[in-house]
């Protein structure tokens, strides 16, 4: 029996990486396969300590690449075990092929992605190009605003992934360095409570069940491939409900509320900001500041679930507000697209309700570029001008050296 470290709710000063590693310790996965890459390295180092000190039962496989890390997780999950890993930026890019295998084989693998910019130019700092680039690989995608959310999201991700209605892998993103390496107050839950919440994995068609032999990863040609893709779409549709249910169960057990989106002062807002990740914290501060200093009513929608995208939740929040203009904050580029990836989703959201609001996109924080209060204020100023009828381009880089 592994030792019980945290017996009651405990507040600690933790980085995002420490919080994620602590969640993994409490989840106690059967198999963890990982390859170090900045800014995720520290996370796996903490977890390796737990393994070395006998605080987890996990089989820890230090592999030779991220392609192998995900391949090992695929094998472990197909065998019928609970598998976890973590990566960042170029590591996720190197995993890309196997991401689709994990989701296509319907294996409930859970992974932290410490969001990092992609090369070139080479850059180790935070942006969301990595996960946005992998957004069509069939994984459920959650984004965290801070270390505590990363901890909570990882714990919930296990149940979301393993639910029989989904059986899809989940990646949980936190911005590199800004969350992964900054120390914040984190509320840790008791070991036994987390164990109870995640429960035991109920394997489906495990390879290790020798009495019921199965084949995983077989070929599916022109006559059946599409049917399996249709199943994945169905699972993703189900995931919308499952994520919601798990969020409610988490709130009931631990008192912290998790929904697909978080709305911040949108009810009476004239200007809506849509944002995901750590910058939501700064944006909330700006919302308060402008309300207090200039009586400008801005509000914020933070996207927690990016896949499946919560179209109805976003549109409900927009329609319930006094919306005159929407500003989408993208920490990733879609070169040649209308604006960023989040912009495209929110544009689709409006189309689905046949409601159209003036909208523009802000590209910010690429390669870890600072996004400060004044940059978000500058964006809101543009939104006000857009609402007043001024022509504003669809792509606006924030804090760019002109």
């Amino acid at each position, binding site marked *: 029996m592994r030792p019980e470290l945290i017996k009651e709710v405990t507040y600690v000063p933790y980085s995002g990486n420490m919080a994620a590693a602590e969640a993994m310790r409490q989840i106690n996965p059967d198999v963890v396969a990982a390859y170090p890459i900045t800014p995720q390295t520290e996370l796996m180092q903490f977890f390796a300590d737990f393994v070395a000190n006998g605080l987890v039962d996990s089989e820890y496989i230090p592999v030779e690449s991220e392609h192998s890390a995900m391949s090992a997780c695929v094998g472990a999950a197909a065998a019928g075990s609970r598998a976890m890993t973590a990566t960042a930026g170029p590591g996720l890019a190197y995993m890309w092929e196997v991401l689709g295998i994990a989701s*296509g*084989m*319907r294996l409930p693998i859970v992974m932290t992605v410490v969001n990092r910019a992609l090369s070139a130019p080479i850059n180790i700092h935070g942006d969301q190009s990595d996960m946005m680039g992998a957004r069509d690989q069939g994984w459920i995608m959650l984004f965290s605003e801070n270390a505590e959310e990363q901890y909570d999201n990882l714990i919930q991700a296990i149940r979301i992934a393993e639910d029989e209605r989904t059986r899809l892998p989940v990646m949980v993103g936190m911005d590199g360095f800004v969350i992964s390496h900054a120390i914040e107050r984190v509320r840790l839950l008791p070991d036994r409570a987390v164990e109870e919440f995640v429960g035991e994995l109920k394997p*489906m*068609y495990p390879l290790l069940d020798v009495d019921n*032999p*199965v084949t995983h990863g077989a070929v599916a040609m022109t006559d059946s491939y599409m049917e*399996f893709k249709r199943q994945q779409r169905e699972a993703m549709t189900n995931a919308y409900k499952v994520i919601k249910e798990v969020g409610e169960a988490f709130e009931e057990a631990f008192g912290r509320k998790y929904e697909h989106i978080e709305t911040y002062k949108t009810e009476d807002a004239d200007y809506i900001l849509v944002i995901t990740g750590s910058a939501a914290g700064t944006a909330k501060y700006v919302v308060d500041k402008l309300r207090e200093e200039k009586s400008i009513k801005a509000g914020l929608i933070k996207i927690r679930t990016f896949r499946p995208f919560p179209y109805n939740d976003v549109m409900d929040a927009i329609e319930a507000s006094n919306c005159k203009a929407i500003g989408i904050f993208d920490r990733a580029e879609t070169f040649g697209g209308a604006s960023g990836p989040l912009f495209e989703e929110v544009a689709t959201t409006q189309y689905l309700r046949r409601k159209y609001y003036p909208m523009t996109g802000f590209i910010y924080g690429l390669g870890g570029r600072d996004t400060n209060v004044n940059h978000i204020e500058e964006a809101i100023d543009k939104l006000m001008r857009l609402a007043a009828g001024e022509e504003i381009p669809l792509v606006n880089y924030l804090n760019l050296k002109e």
Partner: protein
Amino acid sequence: MIKGWRELKIGGVITEPGSSEKYNTGEWRAWRPVFEADKCVNCMLCWVFCPDSSILVEEEKMVGVDYDHCKGCGICAHECPTNALEMKPEYLFREED
């Protein structure tokens, strides 16, 4: 007959051992090896080279090709020293099927 998406097991999992036997890979064939027994000397080179074990042999004699599994690669016809196997376009035969 392959089931619809609601009935298929998720992730392409196969729970029936040996079910690949039911899959007729011969459906992929674009060229068909046609056997002429009169020219055959039963040297068995086609049997040795066939990558799909599709050469049918009875009592040490070559008797034909298993068209359910022959993918039409043409190796048998290429190796045959007496031209007892000839590759012909599949469409010439499909209407008969």
